[in-house]
Protein backbone atom coordinates (compact mmCIF):
# COMPACT_ATOMS: atom_id res chain seq x y z
CA UNK A 1 0.00 0.00 0.00
CA UNK A 2 1.77 3.16 -1.18
CA UNK A 3 0.49 6.30 0.43
CA UNK A 4 1.04 9.98 -0.19
CA UNK A 5 0.33 12.42 2.60
CA UNK A 6 -0.10 16.13 1.81
CA UNK A 7 1.07 18.40 4.59
CA UNK A 8 1.19 22.15 4.94
CA UNK A 9 3.33 24.17 7.31
CA UNK A 10 1.21 26.79 9.06
CA UNK A 11 1.78 29.50 11.68
CA UNK A 12 1.27 28.25 15.22
CA UNK A 13 -1.57 30.40 16.43
CA UNK A 14 -5.16 31.27 15.81
CA UNK A 15 -4.30 34.95 16.01
CA UNK A 16 -1.94 35.57 13.11
CA UNK A 17 -2.22 39.05 11.71
CA UNK A 18 -3.44 39.80 8.23
CA UNK A 19 -1.68 42.34 6.04
CA UNK A 20 -4.27 45.09 5.52
CA UNK A 21 -3.07 45.80 1.96
CA UNK A 22 -2.46 42.39 0.42
CA UNK A 23 -4.98 40.60 2.65
CA UNK A 24 -2.50 37.78 3.09
CA UNK A 25 -1.16 36.36 6.33
CA UNK A 26 1.81 38.00 8.00
CA UNK A 27 3.95 34.99 8.76
CA UNK A 28 7.11 36.65 10.08
CA UNK A 29 7.95 36.03 13.72
CA UNK A 30 5.37 33.30 14.19
CA UNK A 31 6.56 29.77 14.92
CA UNK A 32 5.62 27.26 12.24
CA UNK A 33 4.01 23.88 12.84
CA UNK A 34 2.52 21.08 10.78
CA UNK A 35 -1.12 21.93 10.11
CA UNK A 36 -2.78 20.07 13.04
CA UNK A 37 -5.19 18.08 10.83
CA UNK A 38 -2.27 16.91 8.72
CA UNK A 39 -0.80 15.15 11.74
CA UNK A 40 -3.86 12.88 11.65
CA UNK A 41 -3.23 12.32 7.96
CA UNK A 42 0.39 11.35 8.69
CA UNK A 43 -0.64 9.01 11.50
CA UNK A 44 -3.26 7.29 9.37
CA UNK A 45 -0.77 6.80 6.54
CA UNK A 46 1.83 5.35 8.90
CA UNK A 47 -0.73 3.02 10.52
CA UNK A 48 -1.82 1.67 7.14
CA UNK A 49 1.80 1.07 6.22
CA UNK A 50 2.46 -0.69 9.52
CA UNK A 51 -0.45 -3.04 8.87
CA UNK A 52 -0.16 -3.70 5.17
CA UNK A 53 3.42 -2.76 4.28
CA UNK A 54 4.37 -0.30 1.56
CA UNK A 55 5.66 3.22 1.79
CA UNK A 56 4.47 6.63 2.95
CA UNK A 57 5.66 9.74 1.13
CA UNK A 58 4.92 13.22 2.44
CA UNK A 59 4.62 16.12 0.03
CA UNK A 60 4.35 19.80 0.73
CA UNK A 61 4.31 22.97 -1.30
CA UNK A 62 5.91 25.79 0.59
CA UNK A 63 9.01 27.86 1.36
CA UNK A 64 12.39 26.21 2.15
CA UNK A 65 11.63 26.15 5.88
CA UNK A 66 8.71 23.80 5.21
CA UNK A 67 11.47 21.15 5.17
CA UNK A 68 11.18 21.22 8.95
CA UNK A 69 7.57 20.09 8.76
CA UNK A 70 8.55 17.29 6.38
CA UNK A 71 11.37 16.23 8.72
CA UNK A 72 8.94 16.04 11.59
CA UNK A 73 6.72 13.85 9.43
CA UNK A 74 9.71 11.55 8.88
CA UNK A 75 10.41 11.41 12.61
CA UNK A 76 6.82 10.22 13.04
CA UNK A 77 7.23 7.31 10.65
CA UNK A 78 6.94 8.71 7.12
CA UNK A 79 9.49 7.09 4.77
CA UNK A 80 10.21 9.79 2.23
CA UNK A 81 9.39 13.42 1.64
CA UNK A 82 9.48 15.95 -1.19
CA UNK A 83 9.17 19.70 -1.08
CA UNK A 84 7.75 21.68 -3.97
CA UNK A 85 9.60 24.93 -3.60
CA UNK A 86 9.89 27.81 -6.03
CA UNK A 87 9.38 31.56 -5.73
CA UNK A 88 6.95 31.18 -8.60
CA UNK A 89 4.62 29.11 -6.38
CA UNK A 90 4.12 32.00 -3.92
CA UNK A 91 0.72 33.61 -3.57
CA UNK A 92 -1.11 30.54 -4.81
CA UNK A 93 -4.82 30.12 -4.16
CA UNK A 94 -6.43 26.69 -4.01
CA UNK A 95 -6.67 26.48 -7.81
CA UNK A 96 -2.94 27.03 -8.24
CA UNK A 97 -2.03 24.97 -5.14
CA UNK A 98 -3.94 21.93 -6.33
CA UNK A 99 -2.36 22.17 -9.77
CA UNK A 100 1.14 22.33 -8.31
CA UNK A 101 0.50 19.52 -5.81
CA UNK A 102 -1.03 17.31 -8.50
CA UNK A 103 2.06 17.84 -10.67
CA UNK A 104 4.29 16.99 -7.72
CA UNK A 105 2.29 13.83 -7.02
CA UNK A 106 2.62 12.77 -10.66
CA UNK A 107 6.36 13.18 -10.23
CA UNK A 108 6.35 10.83 -7.19
CA UNK A 109 4.55 8.28 -9.36
CA UNK A 110 2.66 5.24 -8.11
CA UNK A 111 0.26 5.48 -5.16
CA UNK A 112 -2.80 3.72 -3.78
CA UNK A 113 -4.11 6.43 -1.49
CA UNK A 114 -3.58 10.14 -0.92
CA UNK A 115 -4.39 11.47 2.54
CA UNK A 116 -4.94 15.16 3.31
CA UNK A 117 -6.06 16.96 6.42
CA UNK A 118 -9.68 18.11 6.32
CA UNK A 119 -8.57 21.74 6.23
CA UNK A 120 -5.79 24.05 7.33
CA UNK A 121 -5.85 26.42 10.30
CA UNK A 122 -4.61 29.36 8.21
CA UNK A 123 -6.22 29.15 4.75
CA UNK A 124 -9.13 27.14 6.12
CA UNK A 125 -10.73 26.46 2.74
CA UNK A 126 -10.86 22.63 2.84
CA UNK A 127 -10.62 22.78 -0.94
CA UNK A 128 -7.13 21.46 -1.56
CA UNK A 129 -7.93 17.77 -0.98
CA UNK A 130 -10.91 17.62 -3.33
CA UNK A 131 -9.09 19.88 -5.80
CA UNK A 132 -6.08 17.59 -6.02
CA UNK A 133 -8.36 14.60 -6.56
CA UNK A 134 -10.11 16.41 -9.41
CA UNK A 135 -6.79 17.30 -11.01
CA UNK A 136 -5.66 13.67 -10.81
CA UNK A 137 -9.08 12.41 -11.85
CA UNK A 138 -9.45 10.01 -8.93
CA UNK A 139 -12.34 9.48 -6.49
CA UNK A 140 -12.26 11.21 -3.11
CA UNK A 141 -14.13 11.36 0.18
CA UNK A 142 -13.67 14.25 2.58
CA UNK A 143 -14.16 14.39 6.37
CA UNK A 144 -13.22 10.77 6.84
CA UNK A 145 -13.35 9.74 10.49
CA UNK A 146 -12.60 6.07 10.03
CA UNK A 147 -11.21 3.72 7.43
CA UNK A 148 -13.31 0.59 7.87
CA UNK A 149 -11.54 -1.50 5.31
CA UNK A 150 -8.80 -1.04 2.80
CA UNK A 151 -7.94 -3.63 0.17
CA UNK A 152 -5.96 -3.69 -3.04
CA UNK A 153 -8.68 -2.21 -5.17
CA UNK A 154 -11.12 -0.47 -2.91
CA UNK A 155 -11.66 1.10 0.47
CA UNK A 156 -14.68 1.61 2.72
CA UNK A 157 -14.72 4.71 4.88
CA UNK A 158 -16.94 6.63 7.27
CA UNK A 159 -17.60 10.26 6.40
CA UNK A 160 -18.57 12.61 9.22
CA UNK A 161 -21.72 14.57 8.62
CA UNK A 162 -23.43 17.19 10.78
CA UNK A 163 -26.08 14.68 11.77
CA UNK A 164 -24.33 11.32 11.76
CA UNK A 165 -22.08 9.65 9.24
CA UNK A 166 -22.10 8.04 5.81
CA UNK A 167 -20.42 4.78 4.90
CA UNK A 168 -18.90 5.04 1.44
CA UNK A 169 -16.99 2.65 -0.72
CA UNK A 170 -14.62 3.78 -3.44
CA UNK A 171 -12.11 2.40 -5.90
CA UNK A 172 -8.41 2.88 -5.37
CA UNK A 173 -6.32 4.86 -6.08
CA UNK A 174 -8.26 7.55 -4.30
CA UNK A 175 -7.95 10.54 -1.99
CA UNK A 176 -9.39 11.14 1.45
CA UNK A 177 -9.29 14.11 3.80
CA UNK A 178 -9.36 13.21 7.48
CA UNK A 179 -10.82 14.62 10.69
CA UNK A 180 -9.50 14.53 14.25
CA UNK A 181 -11.70 11.59 15.14
CA UNK A 182 -9.74 9.20 12.95
CA UNK A 183 -6.82 8.50 15.31
CA UNK A 184 -4.48 9.81 17.98
CA UNK A 185 -1.27 11.00 16.28
CA UNK A 186 1.93 9.66 17.80
CA UNK A 187 4.91 11.71 18.88
CA UNK A 188 8.22 11.30 17.04
CA UNK A 189 10.38 8.24 17.72
CA UNK A 190 14.11 8.33 18.41
CA UNK A 191 14.92 6.28 15.33
CA UNK A 192 12.68 8.53 13.30
CA UNK A 193 14.41 11.62 14.62
CA UNK A 194 17.81 10.21 13.76
CA UNK A 195 16.63 9.50 10.21
CA UNK A 196 15.05 12.92 9.92
CA UNK A 197 18.26 14.62 11.04
CA UNK A 198 20.32 13.05 8.28
CA UNK A 199 17.87 12.73 5.40
CA UNK A 200 18.14 14.96 2.34
CA UNK A 201 14.73 16.17 1.28
CA UNK A 202 14.55 16.67 -2.49
CA UNK A 203 13.20 20.04 -3.62
CA UNK A 204 11.36 20.36 -6.91
CA UNK A 205 11.03 23.67 -8.70
CA UNK A 206 8.43 24.61 -11.29
CA UNK A 207 10.93 23.68 -13.99
CA UNK A 208 11.59 20.24 -12.46
CA UNK A 209 7.87 19.53 -12.58
CA UNK A 210 7.49 20.66 -16.19
CA UNK A 211 4.79 23.01 -15.11
CA UNK A 212 2.70 25.53 -17.02
CA UNK A 213 4.00 28.75 -15.47
CA UNK A 214 0.68 30.50 -16.02
CA UNK A 215 -1.16 28.08 -13.78
CA UNK A 216 0.92 28.55 -10.64
CA UNK A 217 1.50 31.10 -7.91
CA UNK A 218 -0.17 34.46 -7.93
CA UNK A 219 -0.41 34.45 -11.72
CA UNK A 220 -2.28 31.16 -11.73
CA UNK A 221 -4.66 32.19 -9.00
CA UNK A 222 -8.20 33.01 -9.99
CA UNK A 223 -9.21 34.31 -6.59
CA UNK A 224 -8.40 37.66 -5.17
CA UNK A 225 -8.83 38.10 -1.45
CA UNK A 226 -10.90 41.24 -1.00
CA UNK A 227 -11.92 40.93 2.58
CA UNK A 228 -11.52 38.40 5.38
CA UNK A 229 -14.29 37.95 7.93
CA UNK A 230 -15.81 35.15 9.98
CA UNK A 231 -18.76 33.51 8.21
CA UNK A 232 -22.21 34.36 9.56
CA UNK A 233 -23.36 32.04 12.30
CA UNK A 234 -25.73 29.26 11.33
CA UNK A 235 -29.10 30.41 12.68
CA UNK A 236 -29.65 32.07 16.03
CA UNK A 237 -28.39 30.49 19.16
CA UNK A 238 -27.76 31.24 22.75
CA UNK A 239 -25.15 29.65 24.93
CA UNK A 240 -26.32 28.40 28.29
CA UNK A 241 -23.59 28.45 30.92
CA UNK A 242 -23.28 27.34 34.52
CA UNK A 243 -23.26 24.05 36.38
CA UNK A 244 -25.10 21.12 34.88
CA UNK A 245 -28.07 21.67 37.19
CA UNK A 246 -28.21 25.38 36.35
CA UNK A 247 -28.00 24.61 32.64
CA UNK A 248 -30.83 22.13 32.85
CA UNK A 249 -32.95 24.59 34.80
CA UNK A 250 -32.34 27.44 32.34
CA UNK A 251 -33.00 25.19 29.38
CA UNK A 252 -36.30 23.93 30.81
CA UNK A 253 -37.39 27.50 31.52
CA UNK A 254 -36.59 28.57 27.95
CA UNK A 255 -38.37 25.60 26.42
CA UNK A 256 -41.36 26.38 28.55
CA UNK A 257 -41.27 30.06 27.58
CA UNK A 258 -41.21 29.08 23.95
CA UNK A 259 -44.17 26.81 24.52
CA UNK A 260 -42.23 23.75 23.38
CA UNK A 261 -42.84 21.88 26.58
CA UNK A 262 -45.52 22.25 29.14
CA UNK A 263 -44.64 20.83 32.50
CA UNK A 264 -44.74 22.42 35.91
CA UNK A 265 -41.21 23.50 36.96
Amino acid at each position, binding site marked *: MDIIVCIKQVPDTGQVKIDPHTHTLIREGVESIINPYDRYAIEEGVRIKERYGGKVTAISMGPPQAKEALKEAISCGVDEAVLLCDRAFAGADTLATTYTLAKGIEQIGRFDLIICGKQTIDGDTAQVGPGVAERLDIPYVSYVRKIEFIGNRCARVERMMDDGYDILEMDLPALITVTKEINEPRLPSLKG*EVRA*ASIEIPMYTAKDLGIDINKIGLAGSATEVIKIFPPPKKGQYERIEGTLDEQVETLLKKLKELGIINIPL
Partner: protein
Amino acid sequence: MDYFLTDKQKMIKNLARRIAEEKIKPKRAELDEKEEFPWELMDILAKSDLFGLIIPTEYGGFGGGCFENCLAVEELGRACIGVATTFAASGLGAYPILFYGTEEQKRKYLPEIASGRKLAAFALTESSAGSDAAGIQTQATSSGDVYILNGTKQWITNGGEAEVYSVIAMTDRTRGARGASAFIVEKGDPGFSFGRKEKKMGIRCSSTRELIFDNCRIPKDRIIGREGMGFIIAMKTFDEARPGIGALSVGLAQGALDEAVRFAKERVQFGKPIISFQAIQHMLADMATLTEAARALVYAVARYIDTRPRDFSKVSAMAKLFPSDVAMKVTTDAVQILGGHGYMRDYPVEKMMRDAKILQIYEGTNQIQRNIIGQALNKEYGKKF
Protein backbone atom coordinates in the same frame (compact mmCIF):
# COMPACT_ATOMS: atom_id res chain seq x y z
CA MET B 1 23.36 25.06 32.64
CA ASP B 2 24.87 23.67 29.49
CA TYR B 3 26.00 20.09 30.00
CA PHE B 4 27.40 19.85 26.48
CA LEU B 5 25.03 17.21 25.23
CA THR B 6 25.51 15.73 21.77
CA ASP B 7 22.78 16.22 19.17
CA LYS B 8 21.51 12.71 19.86
CA GLN B 9 21.41 13.30 23.59
CA LYS B 10 19.50 16.55 23.08
CA MET B 11 17.07 14.65 20.89
CA ILE B 12 16.47 12.08 23.64
CA LYS B 13 15.99 14.76 26.29
CA ASN B 14 13.63 16.81 24.11
CA LEU B 15 11.53 13.84 23.10
CA ALA B 16 11.22 12.60 26.69
CA ARG B 17 10.30 16.11 27.81
CA ARG B 18 7.65 16.39 25.13
CA ILE B 19 6.10 13.08 26.17
CA ALA B 20 6.23 14.18 29.81
CA GLU B 21 4.55 17.51 29.09
CA GLU B 22 1.98 16.44 26.51
CA LYS B 23 1.10 12.94 27.62
CA ILE B 24 2.15 12.23 31.22
CA LYS B 25 1.32 15.48 33.03
CA PRO B 26 -2.35 15.52 32.01
CA LYS B 27 -2.75 11.91 33.22
CA ARG B 28 -0.65 11.70 36.38
CA ALA B 29 -3.21 12.79 38.97
CA GLU B 30 -5.87 10.42 37.68
CA LEU B 31 -3.46 7.48 37.47
CA ASP B 32 -2.38 8.19 41.05
CA GLU B 33 -5.93 8.48 42.31
CA LYS B 34 -7.09 5.29 40.60
CA GLU B 35 -3.84 3.38 41.21
CA GLU B 36 -4.08 2.45 37.55
CA PHE B 37 -1.17 0.89 35.67
CA PRO B 38 -0.07 3.32 32.92
CA TRP B 39 -0.37 1.01 29.93
CA GLU B 40 -1.37 3.76 27.54
CA LEU B 41 1.72 5.77 28.44
CA MET B 42 3.95 2.71 28.17
CA ASP B 43 2.61 2.30 24.66
CA ILE B 44 3.55 5.88 23.83
CA LEU B 45 7.06 5.39 25.25
CA ALA B 46 7.34 2.20 23.23
CA LYS B 47 6.33 3.86 19.96
CA SER B 48 8.89 6.57 20.62
CA ASP B 49 11.66 3.92 20.92
CA LEU B 50 12.51 4.90 24.50
CA PHE B 51 12.48 1.31 25.79
CA GLY B 52 15.33 0.64 23.39
CA LEU B 53 17.57 3.37 24.81
CA ILE B 54 19.91 1.07 26.73
CA ILE B 55 19.70 -1.86 24.31
CA PRO B 56 22.43 -2.22 21.63
CA THR B 57 21.38 -1.58 18.05
CA GLU B 58 22.07 -5.22 17.03
CA TYR B 59 19.17 -6.21 19.30
CA GLY B 60 16.82 -3.57 17.96
CA GLY B 61 17.71 -0.88 20.46
CA PHE B 62 19.09 2.62 20.28
CA GLY B 63 22.51 1.80 21.64
CA GLY B 64 22.61 4.38 24.40
CA GLY B 65 24.39 4.05 27.73
CA CYS B 66 23.78 4.89 31.34
CA PHE B 67 23.86 8.62 30.57
CA GLU B 68 21.28 8.49 27.79
CA ASN B 69 19.00 6.50 30.08
CA CYS B 70 19.45 9.11 32.82
CA LEU B 71 18.51 11.94 30.45
CA ALA B 72 15.26 10.21 29.54
CA VAL B 73 14.17 9.15 33.03
CA GLU B 74 14.99 12.60 34.43
CA GLU B 75 12.53 14.19 32.00
CA LEU B 76 9.88 11.53 32.57
CA GLY B 77 10.39 11.85 36.33
CA ARG B 78 9.83 15.56 36.14
CA ALA B 79 6.21 14.78 35.32
CA CYS B 80 5.60 11.55 37.29
CA ILE B 81 8.02 9.14 38.94
CA GLY B 82 5.31 6.49 39.09
CA VAL B 83 5.32 6.34 35.31
CA ALA B 84 9.09 6.79 35.16
CA THR B 85 9.68 3.97 37.67
CA THR B 86 7.51 1.64 35.62
CA PHE B 87 9.61 2.52 32.58
CA ALA B 88 12.96 2.26 34.39
CA ALA B 89 12.08 -1.07 36.05
CA SER B 90 11.86 -2.67 32.62
CA GLY B 91 15.45 -1.61 32.01
CA LEU B 92 16.42 -3.04 35.40
CA GLY B 93 14.92 -6.37 34.36
CA ALA B 94 16.82 -6.24 31.06
CA TYR B 95 20.28 -5.51 32.47
CA PRO B 96 21.04 -9.07 33.69
CA ILE B 97 20.29 -10.44 30.21
CA LEU B 98 22.19 -7.61 28.55
CA PHE B 99 25.33 -8.04 30.71
CA TYR B 100 25.41 -11.79 31.31
CA GLY B 101 22.94 -13.42 28.91
CA THR B 102 23.93 -15.81 26.15
CA GLU B 103 23.67 -14.73 22.52
CA GLU B 104 20.45 -16.78 22.22
CA GLN B 105 18.93 -15.17 25.30
CA LYS B 106 19.82 -11.71 24.05
CA ARG B 107 18.33 -12.39 20.64
CA LYS B 108 15.20 -13.84 22.15
CA TYR B 109 14.43 -11.23 24.81
CA LEU B 110 16.17 -7.94 24.10
CA PRO B 111 14.36 -6.97 20.88
CA GLU B 112 11.01 -7.55 22.59
CA ILE B 113 12.05 -5.39 25.53
CA ALA B 114 13.62 -2.73 23.28
CA SER B 115 10.45 -2.35 21.25
CA GLY B 116 8.34 -2.14 24.40
CA ARG B 117 6.25 -5.10 23.21
CA LYS B 118 7.20 -6.74 26.51
CA LEU B 119 7.94 -5.17 29.87
CA ALA B 120 10.63 -6.66 32.08
CA ALA B 121 11.10 -6.75 35.86
CA PHE B 122 13.84 -7.57 38.35
CA ALA B 123 13.08 -9.74 41.38
CA LEU B 124 15.39 -10.06 44.37
CA THR B 125 13.53 -8.92 47.52
CA GLU B 126 11.63 -11.35 49.75
CA SER B 127 9.73 -10.91 53.00
CA SER B 128 12.72 -11.88 55.11
CA ALA B 129 15.39 -10.52 52.76
CA GLY B 130 15.39 -6.80 52.00
CA SER B 131 18.65 -5.01 52.68
CA ASP B 132 20.13 -8.36 53.60
CA ALA B 133 19.65 -9.82 50.15
CA ALA B 134 21.81 -12.84 50.90
CA GLY B 135 18.99 -14.08 53.09
CA ILE B 136 16.72 -15.01 50.20
CA GLN B 137 14.84 -18.30 50.55
CA THR B 138 13.60 -18.86 47.00
CA GLN B 139 15.12 -22.10 45.83
CA ALA B 140 16.00 -23.27 42.33
CA THR B 141 16.60 -27.01 42.13
CA SER B 142 18.25 -28.59 39.12
CA SER B 143 16.30 -31.59 37.87
CA GLY B 144 17.08 -33.19 34.51
CA ASP B 145 16.68 -30.54 31.85
CA VAL B 146 14.74 -28.09 34.02
CA TYR B 147 15.14 -25.93 37.11
CA ILE B 148 12.29 -26.06 39.60
CA LEU B 149 11.68 -22.81 41.48
CA ASN B 150 9.96 -22.53 44.83
CA GLY B 151 9.46 -19.42 46.93
CA THR B 152 7.88 -15.98 46.99
CA LYS B 153 9.32 -12.64 45.88
CA GLN B 154 7.88 -9.51 47.44
CA TRP B 155 7.35 -5.93 46.24
CA ILE B 156 8.39 -6.50 42.65
CA THR B 157 7.91 -3.48 40.42
CA ASN B 158 5.98 -4.34 37.23
CA GLY B 159 4.91 -7.63 38.86
CA GLY B 160 1.91 -9.04 37.02
CA GLU B 161 2.27 -6.63 34.12
CA ALA B 162 5.75 -7.62 32.88
CA GLU B 163 6.29 -10.61 30.61
CA VAL B 164 9.99 -11.18 31.37
CA TYR B 165 11.38 -11.53 34.91
CA SER B 166 15.01 -11.67 36.01
CA VAL B 167 14.80 -13.65 39.23
CA ILE B 168 17.52 -14.32 41.81
CA ALA B 169 17.19 -17.68 43.59
CA MET B 170 19.42 -20.01 45.62
CA THR B 171 20.89 -22.99 43.79
CA ASP B 172 23.22 -24.02 46.60
CA ARG B 173 22.26 -22.93 50.06
CA THR B 174 25.49 -24.27 51.58
CA ARG B 175 27.55 -21.70 49.70
CA GLY B 176 25.75 -18.63 51.09
CA ALA B 177 25.96 -15.58 48.84
CA ARG B 178 27.95 -17.64 46.31
CA GLY B 179 25.08 -20.09 46.06
CA ALA B 180 22.65 -17.74 44.29
CA SER B 181 21.87 -17.76 40.57
CA ALA B 182 19.89 -15.60 38.17
CA PHE B 183 17.09 -16.92 35.95
CA ILE B 184 14.74 -15.69 33.28
CA VAL B 185 11.14 -16.53 34.12
CA GLU B 186 8.35 -15.77 31.68
CA LYS B 187 4.79 -14.86 32.51
CA GLY B 188 2.85 -18.03 31.82
CA ASP B 189 5.56 -20.46 32.89
CA PRO B 190 3.92 -23.40 34.73
CA GLY B 191 3.82 -22.84 38.49
CA PHE B 192 4.46 -19.08 38.23
CA SER B 193 1.70 -16.80 39.53
CA PHE B 194 1.18 -13.40 41.11
CA GLY B 195 0.14 -12.59 44.65
CA ARG B 196 -0.96 -9.48 46.41
CA LYS B 197 -0.75 -6.10 44.73
CA GLU B 198 0.40 -3.50 47.25
CA LYS B 199 -1.40 -0.31 48.21
CA LYS B 200 1.26 2.35 48.44
CA MET B 201 1.97 5.83 49.78
CA GLY B 202 3.35 7.04 46.46
CA ILE B 203 4.16 6.00 42.87
CA ARG B 204 0.69 4.54 43.01
CA CYS B 205 0.28 3.94 39.31
CA SER B 206 3.24 1.57 39.34
CA SER B 207 2.55 -2.06 40.10
CA THR B 208 4.29 -3.58 43.15
CA ARG B 209 3.41 -7.21 43.54
CA GLU B 210 4.33 -10.64 44.85
CA LEU B 211 5.72 -13.30 42.54
CA ILE B 212 4.84 -16.83 43.60
CA PHE B 213 6.86 -19.82 42.42
CA ASP B 214 5.15 -23.09 43.19
CA ASN B 215 7.15 -25.89 41.60
CA CYS B 216 7.71 -23.52 38.69
CA ARG B 217 9.54 -25.43 35.96
CA ILE B 218 11.76 -23.56 33.54
CA PRO B 219 14.15 -24.96 30.90
CA LYS B 220 17.81 -25.19 31.88
CA ASP B 221 18.81 -22.60 29.29
CA ARG B 222 16.97 -19.90 31.25
CA ILE B 223 19.83 -19.50 33.69
CA ILE B 224 21.68 -16.20 33.25
CA GLY B 225 25.45 -16.66 33.44
CA ARG B 226 26.47 -19.67 35.52
CA GLU B 227 25.26 -21.16 38.79
CA GLY B 228 26.61 -19.14 41.70
CA MET B 229 26.73 -15.84 39.80
CA GLY B 230 23.36 -14.58 41.08
CA PHE B 231 24.64 -11.93 43.44
CA ILE B 232 27.40 -10.74 41.16
CA ILE B 233 24.72 -10.20 38.49
CA ALA B 234 22.41 -8.45 40.97
CA MET B 235 25.15 -6.13 42.23
CA LYS B 236 26.31 -5.27 38.71
CA THR B 237 22.69 -4.55 37.76
CA PHE B 238 22.28 -2.18 40.70
CA ASP B 239 25.60 -0.46 40.03
CA GLU B 240 24.45 0.32 36.48
CA ALA B 241 20.93 1.30 37.48
CA ARG B 242 21.49 3.48 40.57
CA PRO B 243 22.33 6.67 38.67
CA GLY B 244 18.95 6.13 36.99
CA ILE B 245 17.27 6.45 40.39
CA GLY B 246 19.40 9.56 40.87
CA ALA B 247 18.10 10.91 37.57
CA LEU B 248 14.50 10.17 38.56
CA SER B 249 15.21 12.11 41.74
CA VAL B 250 16.66 15.07 39.86
CA GLY B 251 13.60 15.12 37.62
CA LEU B 252 11.23 14.99 40.57
CA ALA B 253 13.13 17.72 42.42
CA GLN B 254 13.10 19.89 39.30
CA GLY B 255 9.37 19.31 38.85
CA ALA B 256 8.72 20.37 42.45
CA LEU B 257 10.99 23.42 42.08
CA ASP B 258 9.11 24.44 38.91
CA GLU B 259 5.82 24.33 40.79
CA ALA B 260 7.18 26.15 43.83
CA VAL B 261 8.69 29.05 41.88
CA ARG B 262 5.60 29.47 39.75
CA PHE B 263 3.35 29.49 42.80
CA ALA B 264 5.60 31.89 44.74
CA LYS B 265 5.46 34.39 41.88
CA GLU B 266 1.67 34.30 41.77
CA ARG B 267 0.60 33.97 45.40
CA VAL B 268 0.07 37.38 46.98
CA GLN B 269 0.13 37.86 50.75
CA PHE B 270 0.71 41.09 52.66
CA GLY B 271 0.20 42.85 49.33
CA LYS B 272 3.17 41.21 47.61
CA PRO B 273 3.95 38.02 45.74
CA ILE B 274 5.45 35.70 48.36
CA ILE B 275 8.60 35.29 46.23
CA SER B 276 9.51 38.82 47.31
CA PHE B 277 10.00 37.55 50.89
CA GLN B 278 13.60 36.67 51.51
CA ALA B 279 12.65 33.62 53.58
CA ILE B 280 10.92 32.15 50.52
CA GLN B 281 13.72 33.21 48.18
CA HIS B 282 16.29 31.47 50.34
CA MET B 283 14.31 28.25 50.42
CA LEU B 284 13.96 28.37 46.64
CA ALA B 285 17.66 29.16 46.27
CA ASP B 286 18.62 26.11 48.34
CA MET B 287 16.18 23.91 46.43
CA ALA B 288 17.59 25.07 43.08
CA THR B 289 21.21 24.67 44.22
CA LEU B 290 20.66 21.17 45.58
CA THR B 291 18.81 20.12 42.44
CA GLU B 292 21.57 21.40 40.16
CA ALA B 293 24.26 19.77 42.32
CA ALA B 294 22.37 16.47 42.17
CA ARG B 295 22.08 16.77 38.41
CA ALA B 296 25.77 17.52 37.99
CA LEU B 297 26.65 14.46 40.12
CA VAL B 298 24.30 12.13 38.24
CA TYR B 299 25.55 13.31 34.84
CA ALA B 300 29.21 13.04 35.85
CA VAL B 301 28.80 9.53 37.27
CA ALA B 302 26.66 8.29 34.37
CA ARG B 303 29.24 9.56 31.87
CA TYR B 304 32.00 7.93 33.89
CA ILE B 305 30.12 4.61 33.93
CA ASP B 306 29.82 4.80 30.14
CA THR B 307 33.63 4.73 29.91
CA ARG B 308 33.31 1.18 31.32
CA PRO B 309 35.50 1.50 34.41
CA ARG B 310 36.20 -1.68 36.38
CA ASP B 311 34.67 -0.83 39.73
CA PHE B 312 32.25 2.00 40.18
CA SER B 313 30.03 0.88 43.09
CA LYS B 314 31.06 3.83 45.23
CA VAL B 315 30.23 6.61 42.78
CA SER B 316 27.13 4.78 41.60
CA ALA B 317 25.87 4.69 45.20
CA MET B 318 26.65 8.41 45.55
CA ALA B 319 24.61 9.12 42.43
CA LYS B 320 21.59 7.48 44.07
CA LEU B 321 22.10 8.63 47.65
CA PHE B 322 22.51 12.38 47.25
CA PRO B 323 19.83 13.06 44.59
CA SER B 324 17.17 11.00 46.40
CA ASP B 325 17.83 12.84 49.67
CA VAL B 326 17.64 16.08 47.65
CA ALA B 327 14.33 15.03 46.07
CA MET B 328 12.84 14.31 49.51
CA LYS B 329 13.95 17.70 50.84
CA VAL B 330 12.99 19.71 47.76
CA THR B 331 9.52 18.17 47.47
CA THR B 332 8.90 18.71 51.19
CA ASP B 333 9.97 22.34 50.89
CA ALA B 334 7.82 22.78 47.79
CA VAL B 335 4.77 21.72 49.82
CA GLN B 336 5.83 24.24 52.48
CA ILE B 337 6.06 27.06 49.93
CA LEU B 338 2.62 26.26 48.59
CA GLY B 339 1.31 26.22 52.15
CA GLY B 340 -2.23 24.84 52.47
CA HIS B 341 -2.49 24.63 48.68
CA GLY B 342 0.52 22.34 48.70
CA TYR B 343 -1.26 19.94 51.03
CA MET B 344 -4.23 19.62 48.70
CA ARG B 345 -4.53 17.10 45.89
CA ASP B 346 -5.46 19.94 43.52
CA TYR B 347 -1.76 20.81 43.32
CA PRO B 348 0.87 18.35 42.10
CA VAL B 349 3.39 18.87 44.92
CA GLU B 350 1.27 16.83 47.34
CA LYS B 351 1.81 13.79 45.13
CA MET B 352 5.45 14.68 44.54
CA MET B 353 6.21 14.63 48.26
CA ARG B 354 4.47 11.26 48.71
CA ASP B 355 6.29 9.90 45.67
CA ALA B 356 9.73 11.13 46.75
CA LYS B 357 10.02 8.81 49.76
CA ILE B 358 10.41 5.66 47.67
CA LEU B 359 13.61 7.02 46.12
CA GLN B 360 15.35 6.71 49.51
CA ILE B 361 14.13 3.12 49.92
CA TYR B 362 14.19 1.01 46.76
CA GLU B 363 17.24 -0.27 44.88
CA GLY B 364 19.01 -0.30 48.22
CA THR B 365 18.01 2.04 51.04
CA ASN B 366 20.07 5.16 51.52
CA GLN B 367 21.56 3.58 54.64
CA ILE B 368 22.78 0.74 52.45
CA GLN B 369 24.19 3.25 49.92
CA ARG B 370 26.17 4.83 52.75
CA ASN B 371 27.41 1.38 53.72
CA ILE B 372 28.61 0.80 50.16
CA ILE B 373 30.39 4.15 50.07
CA GLY B 374 31.86 3.60 53.52
CA GLN B 375 33.14 0.13 52.68
CA ALA B 376 34.68 1.43 49.46
CA LEU B 377 36.45 4.19 51.38
CA ASN B 378 37.77 1.67 53.87
CA LYS B 379 39.13 -0.43 51.02
CA GLU B 380 40.60 2.50 49.06
CA TYR B 381 42.42 3.99 52.01
CA GLY B 382 43.53 0.57 53.18
CA LYS B 383 45.42 0.24 49.92
CA LYS B 384 47.15 3.59 50.04
CA PHE B 385 48.47 3.68 53.57
